[in-house]
């Protein structure tokens, strides 16, 4: 009967594991939507230039790690004027800080299927601890992370000087992330 056990093991090793621990971010379909206010009117934009690697196994969330790199220059509000404003030194300063980065240090499960990652978000050269709640759904060879949070833009010196009062452009910015992952195995 030993050959039956060997045959079963051989077959099992051939099928792909549904929940691979190592993933690459798919830049083609991943995006972050940001929602802010301008003179009391809400507006949104999207950022598409997202790359990075994520190690995550829902069975052992504490072993997970995220390294997400965002090219802020890909941000698009639909308005050329607003886009130009984002590039300015007092705002995102694209010339000096084109990339933002999120490096997670710790992932926990807060409820069945709900997770939270604690890590360092670096925007415009400034790093701040940020907690990001997210959900994780895996299929064969791919997965989807969705999460949302609200940040205070002035924590990262975004909108300096007169802009820091928040009267014209609001201080609170909502982020909604949809990150698609491709299994590395």
């Amino acid at each position, binding site marked *: 009967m030993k050959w039956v056990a060997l045959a079963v093991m051989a077959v099992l090793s051939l099928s792909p594991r549904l929940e691979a621990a190592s993933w690459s971010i798919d830049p083609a379909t991943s995006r972050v939507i940001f929602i802010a206010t*301008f003179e009391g*009117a809400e507006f949104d934009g999207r950022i598409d230039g997202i790359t990075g690697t994520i190690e995550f196994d829902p069975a052992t969330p504490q072993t997970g790690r995220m390294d997400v790199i965002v090219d802020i220059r890909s941000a698009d509000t639909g*308005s*050329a004027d607003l886009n130009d404003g984002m590039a300015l030194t007092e705002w995102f300063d694209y010339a000096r800080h084109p990339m933002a980065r999120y490096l997670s240090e710790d992932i926990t499960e807060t409820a069945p299927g709900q997770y939270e990652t604690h890590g360092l978000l670096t925007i415009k050269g400034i790093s701040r601890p940020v907690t990001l709640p997210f959900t994780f759904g895996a299929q064969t060879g791919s997965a989807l992370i969705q999460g949302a949070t609200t940040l205070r833009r002035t924590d990262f010196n975004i909108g300096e000087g*007169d*802009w820091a*009062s928040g*009267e014209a452009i609001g201080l609170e910015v909502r982020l909604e992330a949809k990150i698609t992952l491709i299994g590395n195995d």
Partner: protein
Amino acid sequence: MPLRNTTDSWGHIAQLFHWLMAVLILAMIVLGLMAKNWPLSPTKLSLFFWHKSLGMTILGLVVVRLSWRWANPTPPLPATLPRWERTAAHITHALLYAVMIAMPLSGWVINAAAKIPFKVFGVWTLPAIVAPDKALQELAALVHFSLFLLLAMLLILHTAAALRHHLLLHDDILSRMLPGCHGHARRKPQ
């Protein structure tokens, strides 16, 4: 003095529309020039916010004002006025109405083509009259500023003519637009 126009005088409602919109238009000119020239800052955005909010208010008021004008008799110009003056007056007034409509509309196009988030007085979301389009934005801005130059010339002409009638010709053209002044004009013998 009546609310409605009579056959020889403007009523109170017409007078209110006239002076209210005159004040609003002067405020708009100041706001517009300041907003355009102010360095990029929260103040600049605020100036545009008030300029655009008042601009859309003027557009709404013009519609009501024109409806009121058509629903009322229009006091005729004095019979003694020469034909060229009559024509000049009609053309100037028609152009003023046209500018009062075209300027806010072109401004609306600028806002929509630039896709600048905007709610009139922070309350009513202005619908997008056009899709975002940089070239259209620039064209609308050119039209808007050109109309401003036309408006400025019309206002100078309109004000000078009114003062000429009142101070030189001594007829009641200006006084009949003033609440409470009707009947006090001295008529110069022709």
